[in-house]
């Protein structure tokens, strides 16, 4: 049923998106088979040899003309790139160990038979979180393409021709009507349900709901399978979170096509927690669907 265009909205924080008591809630990670993972670095990044957290440029209020307010919603008007400035991404090659094996290379077959690439991440023994548009295509403009995808072939921790696990083929998917009916990017998240408990071997990331103030202090980490790199290779980058919205998280972490569905995650000690699902490349920043209380509750139900 179409929504009444006179439905009132408010700039006040939307009720029910964050815990009422302001305290974070989270589901715990599991490390799967094998030893304990290395703790994160002091800057909140993965301990990847040779990788350093890029310096955030100092904001200079006198550096140039003030941006049109429309850029806040739609990005810069011309030729944005999803890799912003120097390409900080580093390749991960030890993908068969935790935490890297949690990230999954996805080959997607859409309803019209077209083939696509994406990324997902285990949140439980048989559940992989990803973007809604990875599992359900909306308003493509191509006859026969829209709707649930036919199947997704999943390779956890793949590194080019090196296959650590799988592939496992899934035809069981989850999303929400905010995406499947309305195509609203604020609800662009979903899940792949595997027919096996492969996640018990690979392990999984936790996920949680944190306040705006907390997220703005966090280093966001993304690992995924970008299509501009050698086929099915895993690449990593990190940066402080740029900004947050009620249902979105924005960051200047370099990504490319093929990384939709990646985990945007924080590291607390030895533990990794998803804070958003990467979905869009933008002009100045890229963005993901924030894990709010409703997203958290759906992920918790889908991992059961």
């Amino acid at each position: 049923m179409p929504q009444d265009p006179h439905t009132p909205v408010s700039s006040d924080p939307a009720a029910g998106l964050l815990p009422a008591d302001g305290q974070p809630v989270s589901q715990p990670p599991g490390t799967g088979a094998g030893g304990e993972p290395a703790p994160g670095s002091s800057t909140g990044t993965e301990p990847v040899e040779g990788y350093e957290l890029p310096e955030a440029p100092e904001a200079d209020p006198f550096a140039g003309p003030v941006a049109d307010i429309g850029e806040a919603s739609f990005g810069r008007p011309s030729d944005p790139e999803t890799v912003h400035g120097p390409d900080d991404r580093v390749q991960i090659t030890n993908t068969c160990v935790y935490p890297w094996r949690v990230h999954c290379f996805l080959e997607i077959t859409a309803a019209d038979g077209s083939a696509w690439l994406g990324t997902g991440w285990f949140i439980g023994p048989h559940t992989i979180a990803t973007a809604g548009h990875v599992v359900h295509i909306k308003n493509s403009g191509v006859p026969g393409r829209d709707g649930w995808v036919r199947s997704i072939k999943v390779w956890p921790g793949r590194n080019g021709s090196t296959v650590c696990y799988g592939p496992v083929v899934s035809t069981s998917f989850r999303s929400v009507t905010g995406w499947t009916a309305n195509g609203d990017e604020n609800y662009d998240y979903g899940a792949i349900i595997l027919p096996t408990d492969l996640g018990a071997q690979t392990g999984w990331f936790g996920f949680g709901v944190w306040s705006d103030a907390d997220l703005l202090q966090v280093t966001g980490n993304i690992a995924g399978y970008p299509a501009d790199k050698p086929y099915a290779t895993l690449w990593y980058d990190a940066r402080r979170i740029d900004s947050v919205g009620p249902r979105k998280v924005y960051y200047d972490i370099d990504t490319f096509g093929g990384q939709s569905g990646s985990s945007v995650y924080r590291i607390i000690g030895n533990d990794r927690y998803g804070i958003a699902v990467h979905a869009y490349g933008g002009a100045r920043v890229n963005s993901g669907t924030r894990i709010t209380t409703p997203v958290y509750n759906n992920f918790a139900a889908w991992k059961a």
Partner: protein
Amino acid sequence: MSTPSAPAGVIRGTVRDAAGAPVAGARVAFAGGPVPLPDVAALTDGEGRFALTAPAAGTYTVVCRAGGATAAARVEVTAAPAAARPEDVRADLRLG
């Protein structure tokens, strides 16, 4: 791959190698566009063809990669007011 409203256009093309033969399984994605875009990549079919959704009017940068070769093209999608169907725009790519 998906857009939040009826798209302005569909960018269709074929990826060919340096000799002009169509390339199956090439990866094709947007490297830039007028609005934030879903971060997926298409694989070309057996005849080297792809079709990417352009959600809004503007200039798009389409890149492809197969093996170690890459190619890119800039294409313009113009919004047809109240168009009954999305505009079809060609973007053929030749790998170097």
